[in-house]
């Protein structure tokens, strides 16, 4: 494909039927009411010159280049700010407007450097284009320094690692400022000064020091070279585009990978991407350098013992070695002695093939996925209540929400592009309830303030959600008609939730949430026309993660907030393909499509197609694999694209398990922490080389298209299939498309999905089948997947992880905008400029009593281990609670987290660890692992 330039309609689309008919340059066109003349003209095939207008931003009307003549109207109105009216007759190309436009262009060019031939935007500059379109042939005022007062001497700001700001080329169109306001919602940019002194400014400082979050919206909006990617400055303009999907968070943004030959020049968010609609964040937009980082492993490596040096070997040898060792171990220790972990960073097709290898070639169900340690409670809880393990809405739905409840999620850091959508709705007036121990940015940010911040004590989510339901039931706010028609189990549940012990007053001493606030928040949610819940790992990563998911489902059913736009229960998934990896049968108890392994009719589908007899018993979950490795019954593990040695809790336990294995096979881009325990390292492919699909948090299946051949010579699914073959099980695919065809053939919710269909429609949200050929943006619209929604009693049970005199603080963990999970990708990019190390946020009171100052190195100790990191004094957390991230292996925050887990799914309780913090005194405070839980502490 050549370089894709998407059409720019100048102003945003308006909703509604095309009922307003107008005539533009003699052509009739009908558009929705409220549409601008400029946009209507574009629909009619007429391009009106413009500079300050672009269709991602509301009209501004400053450049005066888009002036037109309208019959019966006075003067020459700007077409961007003029809405259409019935019967309007517009002329866009008259002598009068042509003269005006040339005059405007003359003024712009008189204060613009004439360095087009050497300018980095040459060929991609709207100012250059408009000079041509308007027929500019001379500048009567001279140009540059010859024209008198000018802005040519303004200094270039190169502080941002990814883009430059060159104010001498700025035409003060305000597109960047408006993009920061309207699209991103950060409001980091402003026009400083007045009149001729007006200039764009990131708040009076440089870009890196400013509040700019480097989402790239300003760069994308800039019509000149004023804001320009450094990669374009360095490499030149790209020449071709490939539409693909970001490999970071669960938002799953669509991008144009813009290439020069095989070199990626830049990632530009794709306007037709259903998830992001042209927006991006710093990771997806800029942090792709890891894909070509010198640390990448390009050749397979093998060693007999982890004490040995790695040996580079051929693919044949690595695959043969892996298969031989797996068979030997099974022969000696039994069929169930080996297994695999799939990755949410890999495509659906790659994941499907790994679970197939386990089930068909290994002959067991010992396959689990990294979703085990993040959103497995979502799968369990939503299946129990609604009947399917997935969020209920599309992202767009938030634009219709009247009350938004964010529970245990930090969207502006973890899911920034969705957060921008949410902030847009909040700026329009939607109410906000934040339920979080930490004062996340959403609680108070420009033009946004939460109506309620229920700052609960960590681990008391269930008590809070029960109390909200209690208020709604006992105050008569329930939507009884909805409950009656659509749900079951209500009477029993109503009796349960109405008990006095669930009242806000009764739980206030447990949760720390003032009863009056909780009651008011419950009333606000219950009485909203549309109430929507968005949640993250602050819900799931608890000993009652699954209970909390069911508690939120209860709440939504109770208020009828399910089955239409603007409502629902919406998990914000951590990694790009968490939803997909779960859909693909990665759990040890479920075949693809969330069908239990004990279901004979489902097993028969695969038995027939795969020519095997599938095991009807659940396999080991990740924590069970670790326990079984230590007890000796589990001896070999294949790990696809995950760094469990860093990401999983209680590092010493994980390390002991990995060290006990006879064979550890790691498929990854890098020699990660887990690879230090591995016997085989199979180099993986980056998202730029993969061919497949990702499924995002809104169940949207998006194509991941290769922009270059695999640097390692093989696709990851190919390697897995070859291992299965070498083990004696015939598995072969000619392409990733063929794998998706098999998925569609065997999984009812994917029946209508194929690469061909995705190429045709862009993306689709499952279920996609004969009943829903165009997919399903909103689930449970006419009925729940399980028939009736099920109310589940959710007893609050305090966590066993308690603070005491020795460990008096509670640590909770999270992530930050610029880094991603264990940091394997983002630490190998310039994103380290924003977050070079993990820090411990500590409340001023907790710091003061320990004599800790901002920036001090402190020791962080729990019952299972200790580490050392820098303290950051912050009052975001309540007294007694501290917070850190887990992006850097040097700190290894999971050295201190324990193996407490969710009762239903074994999802670790990352969010609650009793710790002590002290000034670091010596090397003794450096990272150490205690080896086992110390009883009684």
């Amino acid at each position, binding site marked *: 494909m050549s370089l894709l330039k998407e059409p720019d309609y100048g102003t945003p689309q308006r909703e509604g039927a095309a009922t307003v008919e107008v005539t533009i340059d003699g052509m009739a066109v009908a558009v929705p009411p409220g549409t601008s003349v400029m946009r209507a003209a574009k629909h009619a095939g007429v391009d009106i010159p413009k500079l300050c207008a672009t269709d991602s931003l509301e009209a501004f009307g400053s450049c005066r280049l888009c002036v037109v003549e309208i019959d019966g109207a006075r003067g020459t109105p700007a077409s961007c700010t003029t809405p259409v009216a019935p019967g309007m007759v517009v002329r866009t190309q008259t002598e009068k407007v042509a003269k005006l436009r040339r005059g405007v262009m003359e003024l712009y060019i008189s204060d613009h450097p004439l360095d087009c031939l050497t300018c980095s935007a040459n060929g991609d500059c709207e100012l250059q284009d408009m000079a041509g379109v308007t027929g500019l042939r001379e500048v009567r005022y001279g140009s540059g320094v010859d024209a008198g007062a000018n802005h040519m001497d303004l200094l270039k700001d190169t502080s941002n690692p990814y883009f430059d700001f060159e104010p001498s080329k700025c035409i003060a169109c305000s597109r960047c400022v408006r993009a920061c306001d309207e699209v991103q919602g950060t409001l980091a940019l402003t026009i400083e000064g007045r009149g001729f002194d007006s200039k764009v400014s990131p708040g009076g400082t440089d870009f890196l020091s400013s509040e700019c979050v480097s989402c790239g919206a300003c760069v994308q909006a800039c019509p000149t070279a004023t804001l320009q990617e450094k990669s374009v400055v360095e490499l030149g303009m790209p020449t071709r585009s490939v539409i693909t999907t970001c490999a970071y968070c669960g938002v799953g943004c669509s991008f144009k990978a813009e290439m020069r030959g095989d070199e990626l020049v830049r990632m530009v968010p794709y306007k037709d991407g259903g998830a992001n609609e042209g927006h991006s964040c710093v990771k997806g937009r800029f942090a792709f350098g890891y894909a070509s980082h010198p640390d990448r492993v390009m050749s397979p490596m093998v060693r007999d013992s982890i004490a040995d040096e790695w040996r580079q070997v051929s693919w044949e040898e690595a695959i043969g070695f892996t298969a031989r060792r797996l068979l030997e171990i099974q022969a000696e220790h039994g069929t169930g002695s080996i297994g695999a972990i799939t990755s949410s960073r890999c495509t659906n097709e790659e994941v499907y093939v790994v679970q197939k290898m386990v089930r068909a070639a290994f002959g067991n169900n010992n396959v689990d996925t990294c979703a085990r340690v993040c959103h497995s409670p979502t799968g369990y809880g939503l299946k129990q209540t609604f009947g399917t393990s997935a969020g209920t809405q599309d992202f767009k739905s938030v634009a219709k929400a009247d009350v938004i409840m964010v529970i245990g999620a930090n969207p502006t850091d973890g899911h920034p592009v969705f957060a921008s959508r949410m902030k847009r709705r909040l700026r329009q007036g939607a109410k906000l309830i934040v339920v979080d121990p930490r004062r996340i940015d959403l609680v108070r940010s420009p033009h946004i303030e939460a109506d309620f911040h229920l700052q609960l004590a960590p681990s008391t989510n269930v008590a809070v959600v029960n109390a909200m339901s209690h208020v709604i039931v006992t105050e008569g706010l329930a939507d009884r008609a909805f409950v009656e028609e659509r749900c079951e189990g209500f009477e029993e549940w109503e009796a349960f939730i109405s008990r006095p012990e669930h009242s806000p007053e009764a739980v206030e001493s447990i949760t720390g949430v003032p009863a009056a606030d909780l009651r008011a928040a419950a009333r606000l949610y219950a009485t909203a026309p549309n109430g929507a819940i968005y949640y993250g790992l602050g819900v799931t990563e608890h000993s009652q993660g699954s209970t909390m998911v069911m508690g939120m489902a209860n709440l939504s059913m109770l208020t009828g907030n399910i089955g239409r736009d603007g409502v629902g229960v919406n998990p914000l998934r951590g990694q790009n393909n968490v939803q997909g990896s779960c859909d693909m049968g990665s759990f040890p*108890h479920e075949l693809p499509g969330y069908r239990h392994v*004990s279901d004979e009719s489902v097993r028969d589908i695969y038995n027939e197609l795969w020519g095997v007899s599938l095991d009807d018993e*659940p396999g080991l*979950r990740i924590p*069970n694999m670790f*326990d079984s490795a230590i007890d000796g019954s589990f001896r070999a593990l294949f790990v696809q694209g995950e760094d469990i040695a860093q990401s999983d809790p209680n590092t010493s336990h994980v390390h002991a398990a990995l060290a006990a294995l006879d064979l550890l096979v790691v498929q990854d881009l890098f020699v990660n922490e887990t690879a230090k325990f591995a016997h085989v390292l199979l180099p993986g492919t980056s998202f730029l080389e993969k061919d497949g699909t990702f499924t995002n948090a809104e169940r949207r299946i998006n194509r991941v298209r290769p922009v270059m051949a695999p640097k390692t010579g093989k696709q990851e699914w190919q390697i897995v299939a070859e291992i299965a073959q070498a083990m004696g099980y015939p598995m072969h695919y000619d392409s990733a498309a063929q794998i998706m065809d098999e998925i569609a053939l065997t999984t009812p919710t994917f029946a209508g999905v194929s690469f061909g269909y995705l190429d045709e429609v862009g993306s689709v949200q499952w279920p996609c089948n004969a009943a829903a050929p165009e997919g399903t943006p909103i689930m449970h619209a006419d009925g729940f997947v399980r028939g009736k929604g099920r109310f589940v009693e959710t007893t609050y*049970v305090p966590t066993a992880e308690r603070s005491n005199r020795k460990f008096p603080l509670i640590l909770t963990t999270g992530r930050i905008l610029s880094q991603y999970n264990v940091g394997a990708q983002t630490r190998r990019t310039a994103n380290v400029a924003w977050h070079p190390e993990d820090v411990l946020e500590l409340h001023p009171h907790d710091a003061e009593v320990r004599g800790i100052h901002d920036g001090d190195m402190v020791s962080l100790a729990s019952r299972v281990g200790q580490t050392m990191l820098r303290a950051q004094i912050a009052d975001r957390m309540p007294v007694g609670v501290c917070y850190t991230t887990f992006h850097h292996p040097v700190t290894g925050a999971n050295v201190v987290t324990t193996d407490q887990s969710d009762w*239903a799914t074994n999802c670790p309780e990352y969010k609650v660890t009793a710790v002590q913090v002290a000034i670091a005194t010596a090397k003794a405070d450096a990272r150490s692992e205690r080896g086992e*839980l110390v009883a009684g502490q």
Partner: protein
Amino acid sequence: MSSTTLPSFVRLANDIAVQFAHRPVEEAASEIAGHVRAFWDPRMRRDLYAFVERGDEGLEPAAVRAVEILRGA
């Protein structure tokens, strides 16, 4: 036996049991048995059975009853 020295599968069984503690023991046991049957690898179930055979100290009564249900199934 301290809860922290119990085997992980016993702690997990107890964690499940307390979720259903508000229900009569027989109902709770049935829920626990159903959950364990659906989600636990057979070797974990065998370990749990063996733990009960050796004496069930530290295991919640409803979980003990769940083991009986599972073994009788």
